[in-house]
């Protein structure tokens, strides 16, 4: 029996992906979990594994084509699982079912192998295959929740839910056996999932296994918001406290819908030069489309206020040189970024209103107590912001390693969903191309972003006990953009100056490190 495997949900707010590379061809025999195709979403390239063993019947789409989430990706004939060499009979799905199902598919292949290995088709086996097909692709995100279990406190009060959270969405390996709505709880009671019918339908529509959704309502009742949250935040879903406001997914789609659509035709009154053969119309797709949308949303939502100040990094340069001279062979060289992250965190501790995100629908600011620092990283495909989780708990060397890992992953398009999203503050560093200032666009719904500019020697006037002196100093500028709706100018300036002061006196910075 063949079935259509649909593109699962592959990341927060991701609605479509582009087929980058097919790893299987029609007629190929695949095993469970075998990589089928590389799909590039606007956030990352993910490898979609096969939900079942079987023979590839059809690939829906060519390399370069866009596929919507929940649209057919590939048709797999799982009844032929046992016969690797079986040519996939076209239309086997319906044709096969005319015979007695237990005797194997009506494929021209020998019935022997099917009898030997393929289990007789039963509704439950089929249900499993379907459930697997429907389950969001947690492959690339498995373990994300386990990696950051500390913020799970919310659900710990409910027996059963904690266990659920610790094992993030399992692609239905366990057959439902007709009781899809039960889950084991601590007392061994087959506890039903508490959720309204409309919520249960929503879960089906979103392909979410509702038994895996931690409920935020009374007695653990699962709300529609809980379901949406899990569907749009794969992996990270259970790592976020349940009552957190919604980002991505539903809200984002709404926002998208309400945003002015970029028009391919410029409006009346603007005259365009005649189009020539050398001109090219380039569709905005994939990562660029995502950037387009998020930048538009940020630019037209947050009231950007940019504050720029110079930072005398002479002492920092010296400190870094000393530290780098003492690194073990296995330790990566320190860049300036780990120091800047540390200074930013120290400043965020004093100005907590810059660490978190706004919820425009609710008109609230959600101050976050953890420090997840987004790092803007350029790639061939566009700007990506991987996140250094719990940056405050990491040593300089650890930060250095993590930044290296993340930028390498971005550069090679191997970044995983769990490394994206959920930052509380973002730093964008243009390195040696950094110029003297910029007006960074906030990584909405965060409220502030720090731009780091080129470090270069400049003559500076140093006020000393013996009067003013001109000295050659290592100077870099820092640009802080913040959401002026929430943060007043003097607060933003004080925050920036705090970070700068710590970078100028790295001894103080070291004393503030945790």
């Amino acid at each position, binding site marked *: 029996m063949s079935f259509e495997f649909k593109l699962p949900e592959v990341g927060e707010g991701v609605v479509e992906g582009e087929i980058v590379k097919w790893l299987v061809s029609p007629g190929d025999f695949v095993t469970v979990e075998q990589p089928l195709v590389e799909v590039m979403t606007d956030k990352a390239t993910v490898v979609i594994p096969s939900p079942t063993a079987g023979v590839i019947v059809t690939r829906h789409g060519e390399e370069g084509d866009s596929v919507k989430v929940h649209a057919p990706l590939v048709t797999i004939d799982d009844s032929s699982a046992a016969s690797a060499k079986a040519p996939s009979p076209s239309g086997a799905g*319906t044709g096969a079912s*005319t*015979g*007695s199902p237990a005797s194997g598919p009506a494929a021209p292949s020998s019935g022997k192998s099917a009898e030997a290995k393929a289990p007789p088709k039963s509704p439950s086996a089929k249900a499993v295959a379907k459930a697997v097909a429907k389950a969001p692709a947690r492959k690339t995100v498995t373990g994300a929740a386990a990696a950051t279990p500390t913020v799970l406190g919310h659900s710990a009060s409910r027996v059963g839910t904690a266990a659920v959270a610790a094992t993030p969405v399992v692609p239905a390996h366990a057959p439902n056996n007709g009781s*899809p709505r039960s889950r084991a709880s601590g*007392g061994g*009671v*087959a506890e039903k999932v508490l959720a309204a*019918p409309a919520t249960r339908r929503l879960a089906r529509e979103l392909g979410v296994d509702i038994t895996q959704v931690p409920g935020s309502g009374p007695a653990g009742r699962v709300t529609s918001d809980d379901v949406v949250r899990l569907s749009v935040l794969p992996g990270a879903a259970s790592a976020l406290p349940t009552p957190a406001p919604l980002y991505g997914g539903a809200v984002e789609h709404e926002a998208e819908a309400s945003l002015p659509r970029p028009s391919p035709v410029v409006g009346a009154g603007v005259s365009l030069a005649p189009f020539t053969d050398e001109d090219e119309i380039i569709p905005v797709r994939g990562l660029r489309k995502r950037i387009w949308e998020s930048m538009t949303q940020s630019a037209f939502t947050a009231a950007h206020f940019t504050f720029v100040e110079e930072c005398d990094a002479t002492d920092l340069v010296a400190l870094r040189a000393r530290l780098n001279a003492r690194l073990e062979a296995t330790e990566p060289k320190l860049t300036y970024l780990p120091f800047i992250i540390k200074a930013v965190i120290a400043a965020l501790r004093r100005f907590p209103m810059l660490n978190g995100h706004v919820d425009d629908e609710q008109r609230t600011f959600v101050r976050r107590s953890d420090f997840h620092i987004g790092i803007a990283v350029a790639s061939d495909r566009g700007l990506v912001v991987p996140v250094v989780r719990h940056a405050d708990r990491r040593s300089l060397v650890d930060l250095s390693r993590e930044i290296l890992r993340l930028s390498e992953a971005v550069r090679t398009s191997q970044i995983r969903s769990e490394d994206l999203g959920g930052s509380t503050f973002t730093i964008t560093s243009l390195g040696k191309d950094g110029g003297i200032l910029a007006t960074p666009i906030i990584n909405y719904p965060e409220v502030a972003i720090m731009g780091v500019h080129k470090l270069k020697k400049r003559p500076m006037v140093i006020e000393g006990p013996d009067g003013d002196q001109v000295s050659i100093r290592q100077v870099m500028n820092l640009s802080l953009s913040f959401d002026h709706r929430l943060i007043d100018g003097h607060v933003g300036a004080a925050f920036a100056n705090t970070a700068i002061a710590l970078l100028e006196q790295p001894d103080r910075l070291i004393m503030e490190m945790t």
Partner: protein
Amino acid sequence: MSERYDVAVIGGGPGGYVAGIRLGQLGKKAVVIEREHLGGVCLNWGCIPSKAIIHAANVRSEVSGFGDVFSATPDVNSNALQAWKNGIVERQRGGIASLLKANGCQHKRGEANLTGAHSLVVRTGEGGTESIEFEKLVIATGAGVIEIPGFPFSEDVVGYARDAVDYDPIPQNLVIIGGGVIGCELGMAYRKLGASVTIVEMMKSILPGTDKDLLRPIEKSMKKHGITMLTEAKAKGFQRVDGGAQVEIELASGEVQSLPADRILVAVGFRPNTAGLGLEAAGVETDARGWITVDEQCRTNVDHIFAIGDVTGPPLLAHRASHMGEVVAEVLAGKPAAVDVVAMPLGVFTDPELAFAGLSEEAAIASGYDVRTGLFPLAALGRAATMNATDGVIKVVIDGTNDVILGVGIVAANANDLIAEACLALEMGALAEDVALTVHAHPTLAEGLMEAAKAARGEAVHIINRPRRGAAPVKSTTPTASSMHP
């Protein structure tokens, strides 16, 4: 030359016709094939006609049971009763036909036989046949009565549920074999319409499996109305005598009793209507008892063949069939629908009515819940007193650890209407507290559910609260006042 359809639906009962309407709405080219009348057993010989008879019986019984207020027990014109009942059925039947038409679903009358996985023939009444090819199939053929040895059908004496809604005149002596839902409902109705009624049940009680708290008021009422209930008894056979029959009953003691009967109603259960359907031609499998097994999308073992309603096995309920009909239509239209029901209400239209949804106390204990229950007797409700209908009780079963309602049983007048609130509570995952804090209008029977929810929490206002844990012996709670808000 055969006609082609996206979906063929075999059976036009409450499952099949609902599927047909929904399929039409969802843009599928569908046909509903019904061998008898649209509406199936439910409309033509079951739910609807029986409720009409029961209502008439209740009207008579209410008048005659009203103490000295009314002077005489009304006479029954059984001919007029049949005409009224048949009028209802015909009107409803016409309504279904026009709904199918309005939604663009074809309707064919005839018996369908599968000839392959994608084809069937319809044998029409006039001996003609029509071939139909379909992409998808929905089997909604329902269930038929089980016959028992020694009681072959006869026009004048031995009949089944569908015959019992046509009794004209009202039998003088009605012997009912089987004390299930049909036996109890019709037994009570015909008793009220003047028949002497004996119910013969093989098990220890009528309505086997019913929670004892809920069964008690019904048994009491049966006795009060003068119905003879012979439990652990077997009907052995009957002898025709002048004007009817003598039924031989083997009692629990082993003694054989002979009862006069002008009508014998056999109501011992149902079997799936699959004979002659040609399931084997399509490769559809059934379980050992012949019911078609389906998954939560109503899909059989054959990918493109679905089954809904009674033919998929118990509980045999029209509303279950209709729900499955809607689900299957949506599944066929590519929607992610599923039969995902917490509370499938079960109802018995006795007097008082019995309605139940969710887990019984026994089932909840067996599932390992820390069970608490709240019982509220109808006698403590002012509205029940003013309706002269104080027999009954409302029982709420909750999970003591988190207050979540697990099940609700109602024995009361209109219990099958009252259960709707409980179903919504169960589907929404409501706490007993939610129901307790919801203001219920006074004076109504619905207040009883609110009070029972409070009772489960030890907060009932109009009865004395006693802790009631699961597994503890069940005792009825004594009302402190004969009515609310006197």
